[in-house]
């Protein structure tokens, strides 16, 4: 055994990067599982290559997975990695600019041959010139070592090569003083029935670990202590998973069946995929011929009494616009999830952005108000899916739930709520034919939900203006104005159910940071750092965008300066200006990438300096 020293650190950010075919997502997710089981708080972010597989070895084909974990609460997958595992030259090239200045880089030297260097666009071998000056570079011929370790396993050379991700994982585990057992168990389970693959991957994992132990290549090993998480059962969830689970939970709470009409689109497809596998919960998933059919089928299902939802991304939301208006007019409950991605048009389909807010709020013909919500973190998607469902059902209205590519693919530990933690909101269908009128109103201004098959409640809905109470087609001018205002008022009534906007940190600060959606994480981290530096600052996060919380105006008026960081050119800022007539300062980024905490920190410090 060597005399390498062990250092205890608070948190660390590790990135695995290699070619699409190198199994980096697998390595990353196994590292994540192991980390979770080790009791840390964590946040992860995969970085897929832009949507087409590129020729192997090129920079276009680089696939990455980043994990940030810590002994205390964590909000982002980390700004800049402390450790990079680079499986080939292209992975090094792509990720180098992202690293901390003193980062450790573990390179798979086996792949730094002329061919791969050229594919990556390196003229000289970066391992041999000044490129990596200042970094702590660890040379490991991983492919070779894996081949050696698996010599005795009766599989092909190609199959042996494939196990090199487990070698890399093992080596990284050693570096962070981790227990291999959960991962070994996972391999056994995953490759059940394929003993040779079990054998190969376990050997590779151990070989990596032992390589760390035996060779004097690292001067230090690290240990991150357990995080003090709230007591309970946990699992890791990505935003898309959490969204899917949230809707199933909502259906249980509403005592309805869940119907999803959807058309695949990056980065929303996983919600459809997850729900397609949950048929045992009675979930009905309909993969439609297009987004229009998807939402129309959803409207049909809603008419007949399902908790009916449709999921998409920006271009798909654009296509659902007209039918959303039908949802508004027929006053049927409906949730539309928009997992935002880089726009306009096809834009940057695999990248994240927050630029569909105005479309969600205003992108319909006529006066067609709908409720708009936005989730803050991957796990929050679960709760916001339930909120969206609750509002849709209670107020008989379409609700748009905004998430984004970053939330969708990123993951974090999710404390599994007990069934009793979430209140029920059972739906009452109208069944009594006595005095039934399809457009009569309850105290919330909601109309009754009377589903086909119910005797005596036969009625017709549709997109033409409806007469108050009776629901017949009406061209009466005054009725139209009345109904337009009534629909608006009904949506405003949702305020009753919206919690107050909470201001955290320094209530007496001059500056309030107002965030929405996935900027929550980076902003929280930035604010933590700023407060650590002794400055005062407050934070409020807006989950309920339309209508806004009742106390919103009061909150905004309490602060000298409101700052809105968002991944667009200032869409929430525009809404705030038009709703509250205050001029917020803006921090904008439109690069297809989430905010880094440092970016928000830097801008906030500038603004604080100006105060």
């Amino acid at each position: 055994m060597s005399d390498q020293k062990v250092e205890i650190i608070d948190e660390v950010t590790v990135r695995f990067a290699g070619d699409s075919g190198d199994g980096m997502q697998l390595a990353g997710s196994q590292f994540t599982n192991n980390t979770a089981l080790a009791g840390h708080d964590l946040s992860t972010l995969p970085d897929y290559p832009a949507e087409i597989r590129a020729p192997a070895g090129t920079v276009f084909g680089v696939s990455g997975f980043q994990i940030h974990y810590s002994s205390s609460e964590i909000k982002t997958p980390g700004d800049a990695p402390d450790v990079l595992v680079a499986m080939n030259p292209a992975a090094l090239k792509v990720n180098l600019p992202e690293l901390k200045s003193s980062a450790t880089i573990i390179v798979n030297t086996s792949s730094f041959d002329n061919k791969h260097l050229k594919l990556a666009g390196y003229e000289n071998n970066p391992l041999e010139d000044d490129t990596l000056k200042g970094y702590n570079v660890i040379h490991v011929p991983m492919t070779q070592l894996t081949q050696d370790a698996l010599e005795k396993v009766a599989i092909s050379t190609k199959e042996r090569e494939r196990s090199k991700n487990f070698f890399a994982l093992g080596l990284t585990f050693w570096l962070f003083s981790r227990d291999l057992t959960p991962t070994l168990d996972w391999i056994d389970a995953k490759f059940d029935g394929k003993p040779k693959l079990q054998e190969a991957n376990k050997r590779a994992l151990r070989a990596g670990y032992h390589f760390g132990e035996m060779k004097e290549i690292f001067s230090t090993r690290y240990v991150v202590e357990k995080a003090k998480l709230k007591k309970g059962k946990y699992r890791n969830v990505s935003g898309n998973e959490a969204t899917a689970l949230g809707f199933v939970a909502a259906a249980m709470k509403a005592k309805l069946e869940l119907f999803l009409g959807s058309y695949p689109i990056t980065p929303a497809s996983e919600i459809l995929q997850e729900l397609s596998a949950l048929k045992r919960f009675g979930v009905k998933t309909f993969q439609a011929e297009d987004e229009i059919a998807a939402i129309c089928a959803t409207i049909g299902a809603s008419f007949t009494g399902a908790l009916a939802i449709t999921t998409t991304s920006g271009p798909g939301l654009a296509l659902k616009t007209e039918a959303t208006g039908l949802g508004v007019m027929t006053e049927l409950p409906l949730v539309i999830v928009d997992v935002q991605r880089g726009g306009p048009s096809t834009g940057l389909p695999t990248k994240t952005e927050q630029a569909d807010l105005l479309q969600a709020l205003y992108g319909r013909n006529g006066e067609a108000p709908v409720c708009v919500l936005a989730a803050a973190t991957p796990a929050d998607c679960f709760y916001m899916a339930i909120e969206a469902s609750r509002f849709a059902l209670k107020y008989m209205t379409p609700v748009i739930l905004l998430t984004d590519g970053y939330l969708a693919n990123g993951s974090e530990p999710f404390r599994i709520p007990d069934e009793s933690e979430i209140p029920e909101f059972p739906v009452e269908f109208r069944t009594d034919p006595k005095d039934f009128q399809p457009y009569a109103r309850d105290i919330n201004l909601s109309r009754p939900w009377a589903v086909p098959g119910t005797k005596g409640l036969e009625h017709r809905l549709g997109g033409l203006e409806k007469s108050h109470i009776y629901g017949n087609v009406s061209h009466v001018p005054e009725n139209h104005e009345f109904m337009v205002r009534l629909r608006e008022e009904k949506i405003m009534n949702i305020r009753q159910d919206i919690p107050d906007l909470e201001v955290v940190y320094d209530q007496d600060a001059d500056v309030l940071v107002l965030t929405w959606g996935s900027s929550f994480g980076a902003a929280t981290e930035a604010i933590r750092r700023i407060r650590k530096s002794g400055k005062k600052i407050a934070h409020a996060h807006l989950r309920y965008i339309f209508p806004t919380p009742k106390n919103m105006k009061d909150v905004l008026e309490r602060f000298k300066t409101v700052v809105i960081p968002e991944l667009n050119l200032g869409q929430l800022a525009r809404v705030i200006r038009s709703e509250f007539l205050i001029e917020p300062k803006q921090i904008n980024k439109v690069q297809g990438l989430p905010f880094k905490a440092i970016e928000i920190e830097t801008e906030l410090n500038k603004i604080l300096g100006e105060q």
Partner: protein
Amino acid sequence: MSDKRVDVPELTPKDFQSSQEVKWCAGCGDYSILAQVQRTLPTLGIPKEKFVWISGIGCSSRFPYYMDTFGMHGIHGRAAAIATGVKLNRPDLAVWVATGDGDLLSIGGNHFIHSCRKNIDLKIILFNNRIYGLTKGQFSPTSELGKKTKTSPYGTTEYPFNPLSLAIGSGATLVARAIDRDPKFLKDMIDKIAQHRGLAFLEVFQNCSIFNDGTYANLTDKETKDDAVVKLEHGKPMIFGKERNKGIRVEGMTPHVVDLDEGDYSADDLWVHDETDECIARAAILSHIEDRPGFPTPVGVFRSIRKKTYDEMFREQIDAAHAKGGGDSFADLLEAKNVWEVN
């Protein structure tokens, strides 16, 4: 629709008339379709509340307002998609679609062909007046080549769709045709689609008395109709003509019109209609037969085959998953994957 017919109190056409005043133009063929539907539904043994009528936008798409059933007047072109959601969520309902040639075949073409392909159990009635009625007279995808309309003052330059051919090519399991001016036959066809399990498509030649009056005159005028129309009957030879002295014979794949009076051929030599033929060749020939000089236009059931429906298979999967157990608790939902505990 469900094939278990339940005992229902006797229904009458009147039970299917809503309180809304019917607002089509005088002489519009839509009235006839409404009347025959209202006459047919009470005979099906299905409780009234189990019917759902879905439509898009167009004169024809006002249909649901006039039916005292559940219904939705949707948005233009999307009736089949809305109906699909209704049927998938509630397979026990009898889901009917009323639509026009613009609604179904122009803007709604995609949903139509996908519904046909999936063989979802919908009854689709196409009110084909070969014109956009509601928007006051632009050509539609079934308007004849060269037709002058408001948007084609020089005549259209488009070949029309053959709706039956399109439905057959898309995989529909029942395709049929009727004419508004032959109410008895129309009622038979409505009954036929009602009885079918799977996607049933009925094209009705419908006269728009305002913007396309007389487009089917040849098929409805007393003097010409018997020679211009042949009624298809399953298992029967194809005979037509005022004197029922003409027949259709098929040699190889080529149909001929023959004169039964001339003595060369008798009814036994004629093409015997087989609506259940799995092969689409017959239906394909029939759907285009009127393009051949001297041939009549067929009405009736062109094709009717039984294939498992989409909604049946959809339901079975869910039932099977249900039967395996689980699917009822938060724990089952949320703890299925890699759970750890923090104490």
